[in-house]
């Protein structure tokens, strides 16, 4: 077993033809220690994202469990105020920046999008690899910070003036701000790769009207990332500049503005939660047709809803700032916008219900998780309607009611679909099915524990318990509800342990999956499990919205691509007509080396501004190595005739 495939079994494809063995040789990824860092195939990078993000999920969960222990009793002494502040900040930052986006968007996206598009690799493979290494660097930065008492401690949104130079001494807020830079650049890189793959590398015949909803969602999310991430980069850089070189962006005494931080942050922050939620709906829209055995109802409506959510997500950010004393008229505008954004999500819900009503459901484990998603996210969305109302928000803002709301929408909207997606696609990734009995135990333990913990928090918020307090007085009578909330932690921990046991057991002893264990309709199920490094032996073409279900018996395949150099087909954005062939890159160590130099520059700039001029030449050197032209492989004479005779 080569060291790079620690979690993926070796592709079990037995080459049945010379073409297959040639493709396997052309598209092979190197093995060995340095080979691991040169891998640019999307399946490897996607699995790395998923594994790393899941590890951060576990770490963030441990922090949450300790926090719940601290809050179980009034005036408890499990954690002092300094430790508790670091714990809740790192918990929130980990879950949002190091788990939710990397797992839902980057992990599932990088793995699935090229397969669902019917192409051999993601666009810009080296950029995809580089994005992964930056994400890993950002995560290590934050967690090494926590372990060395430099954990960020001003909340996951790190408001100024508290996080400013006067009130957070040391380097804690700087570690947080640079972690943002790492993860934000990583997300931008992935967004570019995914957007270009979806727009230009789809299988012929996959017009926009026939594109799986998963691809629509990833496309919309990519654009949301491209527009939202720069805002957080700007605001975290302004914070760093204030702290390191005494700029006055947020100093109210000399004309700076503490509220500017909140506007800039939430202009990113709200689209961010849709960047986390839309991949969840993508998974739901992908799985519902498979388990109701029909095309999804209301394809056009769902696509329009997704696009509308993408746009509207940028227009609601002030609902995080209703208590700051902004004028009523502007606040009401954002109430209206926050209520309007409910409508596209409601439309998607109604379409799913109609699909279920007019379909035929067979009991399968991923569907159970979708039921859980339905129940949990609906509660979260409805508590969001309550929060959209300004007067109600004035009472429950910054209390455990809000904590309950966002855990319902984030865990309901991302974690439940994530588990559904994992049980659905792990057979494709590893080649073996997960155990269904253990999966049912996992679901029920998690569902019960989650509701015990977070439903109680609605009551705590209404009874006046604010957020981010490390303890409370026994006179507040919050003790009993906090005990109930902590009891759910035991169930959720057990659930996750069951899942991990299931995963490791099934990887070795699970029943072999075969190509298409669920009889699904999208293109990733048209190849072996796990997919070989060339993805498809014959690149498919598409006839309808569910490629495999709508395929003709004599469905065309793509011919004409070379199999001795890595070539992909570039197609038209709208109709997916073939346009030209493009040689893509093979394994390369330069993304990793560039990530080292960029990380060193970023981390150095926490301590001194000189890191930027000293680090830049090294970054330039590694970029030169990356971008050095490789030339094209020589064409055969027949190809040259074909290429140049069509004008």
């Amino acid at each position, binding site marked *: 077993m080569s060291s790079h495939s620690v979690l993926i079994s070796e592709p079990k494809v037995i080459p049945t033809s010379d073409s297959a063995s040639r493709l396997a040789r052309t598209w092979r990824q190197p093995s060995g220690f340095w080979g691991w860092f040169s891998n640019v195939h999307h399946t490897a990078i996607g699995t790395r994202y998923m594994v790393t993000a899941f590890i951060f999920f576990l770490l963030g969960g441990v922090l949450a469990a300790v926090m719940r222990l601290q809050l179980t009793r009034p005036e408890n002494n499990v954690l002092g105020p300094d430790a508790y502040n670091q714990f809740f900040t790192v918990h929130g930052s980990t879950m949002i920046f190091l788990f939710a986006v990397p797992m839902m968007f980057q992990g599932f996206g990088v793995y699935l999008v090229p397969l669902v598009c019917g192409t051999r690799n993601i666009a810009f493979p080296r950029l995809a690899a580089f994005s992964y290494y930056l994400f890993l660097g950002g995560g290590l930065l934050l967690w090494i910070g926590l*372990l060395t008492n430099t954990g960020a401690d001003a909340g996951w949104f790190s408001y100024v003036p508290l996080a400013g130079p006067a009130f957070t*001494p040391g380097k804690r807020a700087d570690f947080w701000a640079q972690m943002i830079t790492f993860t934000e650049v990583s997300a931008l890189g992935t967004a570019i790769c995914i957007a270009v793959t979806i727009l230009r590398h789809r299988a012929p015949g996959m017009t926009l009207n026939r594109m799986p909803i998963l691809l629509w969602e990833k496309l919309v999310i990519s654009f949301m990332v491209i527009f939202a991430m720069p805002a957080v980069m700007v605001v975290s850089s302004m914070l760093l500049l204030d702290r390191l*070189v005494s700029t006055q962006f947020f100093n109210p005494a000399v004309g700076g503005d503490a509220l500017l931080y909140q506007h800039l942050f939430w202009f990113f922050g709200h689209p961010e939660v849709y960047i986390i939620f839309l991949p969840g709906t993508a998974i739901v829209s992908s799985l519902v047709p498979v388990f109701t055995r029909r095309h999804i109802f209301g394809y056009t409506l769902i696509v329009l809803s997704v696009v509308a959510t993408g746009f509207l997500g940028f227009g609601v950010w002030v609902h995080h700032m209703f208590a700051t004393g902004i004028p009523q008229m502007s606040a009401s505008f954002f109430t209206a916008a926050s209520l309007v954004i409910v409508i596209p999500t409601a439309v998607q819900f109604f379409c799913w219900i109609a699909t279920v009503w007019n379909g035929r459901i067979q009991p399968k484990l991923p569907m159970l998780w979708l039921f859980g998603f339905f129940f949990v996210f609906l509660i979260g969305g409805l508590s969001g309607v309550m929060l959209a109302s300004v007067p109600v928000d004035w009472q429950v803002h910054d209390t455990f009611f809000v904590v309950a709301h966002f855990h319902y929408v984030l865990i309901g909207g991302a974690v439940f679909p994530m588990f559904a997606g994992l049980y659905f696609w792990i057979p494709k990734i590893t080649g073996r099915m997960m155990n269904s009995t253990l999966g049912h135990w996992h679901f029920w333990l998690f569902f019960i524990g989650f509701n015990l913990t977070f439903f109680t928090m609605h009551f705590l918020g209404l009874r006046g318990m604010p957020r981010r307090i490390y303890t409370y007085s026994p006179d507040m009578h919050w003790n009993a509800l906090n005990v109930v909330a902590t009891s759910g932690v035991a169930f959720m921990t057990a659930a996750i342990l069951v899942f991990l046991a299931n995963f490791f057991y099934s990887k070795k002893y699970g029943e072999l999956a075969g190509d298409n264990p669920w009889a699904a309709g999208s293109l990733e199920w048209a190849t072996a499990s796990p997919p070989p490094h060339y993805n498809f032996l014959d690149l498919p073409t598409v006839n309808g919205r569910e490629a495999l279900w709508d395929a003709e018996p004599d469905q065309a395949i793509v011919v004409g691509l070379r199999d001795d150099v890595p070539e992909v087909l570039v197609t038209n954005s709208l109709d997916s007509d073939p346009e030209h062939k493009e040689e893509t890159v093979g394994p390369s160590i330069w993304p990793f080396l560039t990530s080292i130099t960029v990380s060193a520059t970023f981390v150095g700039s926490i301590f001194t501004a000189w890191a930027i001029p000293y680090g830049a030449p090294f970054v330039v050197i590694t970029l030169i190595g990356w971008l050095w032209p490789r030339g094209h492989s020589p064409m055969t004479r027949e190809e040259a005739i074909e290429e140049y005779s069509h004008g």
Partner: protein
Amino acid sequence: MRLYVQLGIVIALALILFACEREQRIFRNPPPAEQTLNTIQVSGLNPGANPIATPVPPNTYEESAYAVAEGQKLFDQYNCSGCHFHGGGGIGPPLMDNNWIYGSEPGNIFATIMQGRPNGMPSFRNRIPESQAWEIVGYVRSLSGLLPKDVSPGRSDDISAYPSPQSMTKQTPIGVTGNPEQPK
């Protein structure tokens, strides 16, 4: 893979054990057991051909960015800025230059604050607790760049026309004789 997991755990434990001195928050000290005041030597004049310098107590607070930032706040709250302004001096001598009349070592500054000095520096003994005085000492030293950059505080949130201690270049302290201070 098991090797990598074990390696990860070992590294994590090592990081926890060697946590950053810069980031420690010292909220309370055990009550002072002894006065450090009388052991601090201010000047070099004493009888005998070979003067033996008495050791000057170090300032453990200088390793903690939190403590130095507390010193920055206390400097304003206890109205040191009333006479020394924000280091530029006014009624009292400037503190951000390299002229140290009574010595730049932490113990010297501590003695200055606690004992007071001729020409107007009041004595704050029993007014400012010793731990807070050490924090102010750390801040005063950072004003002329004597502390490492990552421990020195950044700008404060007021209308301030002085460069933040983080950006001050380190200046060689000069004693009352006009020569660089001798190491004690």
